[in-house]
């Protein structure tokens, strides 16, 4: 069993099927705690599928099947009796396009904790403030908390969504191309934020932007056609990858 003080997530012999189509083949991957792990690979390689398996999001899609195991702090997420809602609370997710609720900024962040039974106003206030601070957006919104979240810029909305995920006090944050809809300045802010977040969370990020993977992650995993081809320290992957397939992909030598 994995050393839970080092690795927060471990996939073992993980296979995934969309109907008859096998989307992931025998994935074995350990994710280090308080690090940023980037998943890269061409479209359809299985990286987003793998990401969604880590908080049981794929089972919302009919006709899919998982075999193998995903351990989270030593507990198999796919064991009978595990509550997927609790899994998703402890392993939060940020999506490609910012998707704030059509509510006030305050209520976007307070929504999850309220749903989980936090009623005390003082406690909610503190949670909203600390989450917005952790998502590096507090200074921009502290005076407009009652205003609609939909009035924020795309980059602000995405940081608000990160604050909303943080408010659930997860251990792991999954990010599925979190900056693909943002301009370069907003992207740079999110990237800085990701580097900050790893002090308190483990971050796993799917990105099509290889330079982003190189900039923000400690570990990079390269997926190709449903296989995990190579995983290693980001610096090594981007200077001297071990596998030819990895080299061809990151240097743009295959289409």
């Amino acid at each position, binding site marked *: 069993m994995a050393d839970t003080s080092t690795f927060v997530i471990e996939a073992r012999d993980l296979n995934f099927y969309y109907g008859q189509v096998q989307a992931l083949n025998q994935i074995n991957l350990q994710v280090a705690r308080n690090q940023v792990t980037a998943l890269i690979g061409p479209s359809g390689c299985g990286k987003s599928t793998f990401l969604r398996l880590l908080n049981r999001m794929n089972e919302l899609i009919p006709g899919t099947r998982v075999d193998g195991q995903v351990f989270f702090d030593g507990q198999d997420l796919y064991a009978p009796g595990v509550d997927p809602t609790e899994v998703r609370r402890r392993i939060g997710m940020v999506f490609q396009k910012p998707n704030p609720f059509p509510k006030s900024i305050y209520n976007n962040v307070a929504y999850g904790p309220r749903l989980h039974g936090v009623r005390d106003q003082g406690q909610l206030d503190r949670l909203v403030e600390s989450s917005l601070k952790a998502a590096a957006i507090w200074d921009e919104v502290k005076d407009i908390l009652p205003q609609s979240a939909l009035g924020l810029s795309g980059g602000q909305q995405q940081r608000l969504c990160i604050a909303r995920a943080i408010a659930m006090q997860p251990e792991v944050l999954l990010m599925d191309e979190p900056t693909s809809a943002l301009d370069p300045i907003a992207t740079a802010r999110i990237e800085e934020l990701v580097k900050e977040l790893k002090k308190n969370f483990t971050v796993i990020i799917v990105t099509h932007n*290889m*330079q982003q993977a*190189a900039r923000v992650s400690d570990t990079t995993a390269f997926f190709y056609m449903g296989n995990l081809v190579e995983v290693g320290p980001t610096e090594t992957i*981007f*200077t*001297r*990858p071990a596998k030819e397939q*990895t*080299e*061809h992909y*990151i*240097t*743009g*030598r*295959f*289409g």
Partner: protein
Amino acid sequence: MNTISSFHRQMQQVKDDILAMAGLVEQSIHDAAEAMARRDASLALAVIQGDRRIDVMQNGIEERCIALLATQQPVAVDLRFLSAVIKICAYLERMGDQAVNLAQRSQALEELLPTEVPATLLEMAQLAQEMTRDCMDAFAAGDVALANALLGRDDDLDNLNRHILEEMVQWMASENRLVRRGVEFILAGRHLERIGDEACNIAEEVVYLVEGRVIRHLGRPEGQPQPSVGPL
């Protein structure tokens, strides 16, 4: 599936250019050695005047590499290639400078009484030219075995350099009027020895380019003697 992008075409152009620059440097070293062996003042002058072209090529290649780093953000082998090329073109430029120094020794000797060039020095010139050619062949082909073999041969050049120093000291001690010529030959040996050092620097970059391993300052490959400090 492999696709050749405009980026990779530009990388190939950089490679072609540095090989062309290396061709000029090889010619320059060859001509400088010939000028000394034949007391050919006009050839020596041509080497000195031709160095400008090498300098201009270095600047051009370096600028193109930096532009590609800035605009393409290359990684892995492409990153290693550009980083290696920037260093290799600086080493080549210094080899060109050593050829100029050697040509200046020829000019100085031209003003002195004719003397046969010591055989050891001719041997050094031959070896330095071979090392120059081999390091760039290793670069062009990504041949690590050739690069490693070259690193071993640098000691031969160092030993010849020590040899020429001893020979010249004895020669000069025999007669005062030989001192100027002796000093010029000692300096010529030093220039050739430096060319060998630069060829070894290039060979080390070839190993980095191909294998991603930095072997600089690590000593020689197993079974080969460690370098010793030269006499000058």
